[in-house]
């Protein structure tokens, strides 16, 4: 892997538990989750909706402090956010609607503390990488869903962090846009050598993009299984039609089926939160 010279384990989560208060009682969303992600590896957190996968991602990113358990980054304990180490690509893009595409990247770089002189160059390079340069003066509202998500990806890339956390970046896209975006992402991320954690509820996306897939149980989320995808990056569309792809996807379906059913049935009793 590209990150062989860096610390072997980039992210180490041990015994992370978390619950949200719901009225007077606590709703447990994560229960003693432990996982480790190697440097330069691309992993997916896959599970039924409400299984706490976004919560887990927020804990890894330092946006949320778990009730119990710890997170180590390169062997050091994580305290709060580390904008120089970790960047996010959010569900529904989270672009600032009052800023143009270019300004959105510039503002994020300003927040991260990048010197003013470097910001424009880095924003330009990142927009080139996702082929959105000609839309730099557009406002997010003027772009399609796929374009917005590409800009959100460029924003994450421009921050030049070792770790990139992606929270359902495909959720708002239609299926055809997803496929193309997935291919682009595979090519782009293979080049950068970043450590990537992707939250998704799509089996195909998880298989197509990941080196390893952490399958989670229904709420409260635990790691049910870890599935390897032994296939080098970048991956091409013919991987999708291969027997290997089908077999792994089938294995995931087996693992998830009961969990999804459990999650759907419990959702009828517990009001849904959008924390994933």
């Amino acid at each position: 892997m590209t990150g062989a010279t860096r610390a072997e384990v980039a992210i180490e989560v041990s015994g992370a538990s978390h619950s949200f208060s719901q009225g007077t009682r606590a709703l447990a969303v994560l229960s003693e989750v432990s996982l480790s992600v190697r440097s330069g590896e691309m992993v997916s957190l896959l599970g039924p909706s409400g299984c706490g996968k976004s919560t887990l991602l927020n804990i890894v990113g330092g946006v949320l402090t778990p009730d119990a358990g710890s997170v180590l980054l390169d062997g050091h304990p994580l305290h709060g956010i580390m904008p120089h180490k970790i960047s996010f690509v959010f569900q529904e893009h989270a672009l600032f609607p009052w800023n143009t595409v270019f300004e959105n990247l510039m503002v994020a770089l300003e927040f991260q503390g990048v010197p003013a002189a470097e910001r424009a160059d880095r924003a330009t390079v990142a927009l080139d990488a996702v082929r959105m340069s000609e839309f730099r003066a557009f406002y997010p509202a003027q772009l399609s869903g796929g374009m917005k998500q590409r800009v959100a990806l460029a924003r994450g890339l421009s921050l030049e962090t070792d770790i990139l956390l992606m929270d359902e970046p495909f959720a708002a896209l239609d299926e055809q846009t997803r496929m193309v975006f997935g291919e682009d992402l595979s090519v782009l991320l293979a080049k950068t050598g970043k450590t990537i954690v992707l939250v998704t509820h799509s089996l195909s996306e998880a298989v197509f993009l990941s080196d390893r897939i952490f399958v989670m149980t229904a709420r409260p989320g635990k790691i049910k299984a870890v599935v390897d995808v032994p296939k080098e990056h970048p991956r091409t569309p013919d991987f999708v039609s291969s027997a290997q792809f089908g077999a792994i996807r089938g294995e995931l379906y087996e693992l998830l089926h009961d969990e999804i059913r459990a999650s759907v049935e419990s959702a009828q009793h517990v009001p849904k939160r959008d924390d994933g």
Partner: protein
Amino acid sequence: MAKSDRLRTRLVQAGFFVTLLAAWSIESALRLINPILFPRIENVATQFVNVMTSPATLGDVWTTMSTFGAAYGIAIIAGISVGYVVSTSRLFTKTYEPVLAAFYTVPLLIFFPTFILFFGTGVKSKIALGCLAAFFPIALNTIAGFTSVDRNLRTAAISFGASRIQMLRRVLLPGAFPIILTGLRIAFIPCFASVLAGEIIASDSGLGHEISQNAQMMETARMFAYVFLVIIIAALFNLGLSTWETRRGRTLV
């Protein structure tokens, strides 16, 4: 299609005003109502020219508008500051938003005698009344604006390392701006009306004072000239604010 619709709407609106003026002209010619109570249109027109060319008018306009400006300005600063502080915590919002909303329903003119006792019949009592009238809608809209900023955008800004000041400048203010601007527009009328009401009730200068004085001296034509001047000022100000509001809204959505 849309363009011809808009033209038609404008024509109907213009027609309405022309009809009103025509009815008034007919009434004036036929002398249906005692002209001491309701002046004839041509006398009002003459008086309007007199008022507009009189050097004293500038002083009256200055008195009223500077009083209004001070009241509106203080209310904007106080309203946005209080609104921001209240919006910073969910507990504050839950506690104080209903209190501010309750005050907003009080007809604040009832406090004017108190202000006269405190500040006298000069401009200060009108500034206090106008400021009070504008404060509540501005503070309430500021709270609504800040709390409506998408939580995902805040989380994004925090994850990129935004400081408190950067969060305010780059995320909260631009996100809340359209709603705050609506608050400023809503606050304009009660503020301006309170200043004028204060001048009409007790004062020694300003447009409200002229309206009140001329009414008492049965100079109704001249009184109406001032009334029209006030209407024109209010309409222009409102037009400016709503143009700004729609232009902001259009670039964002």
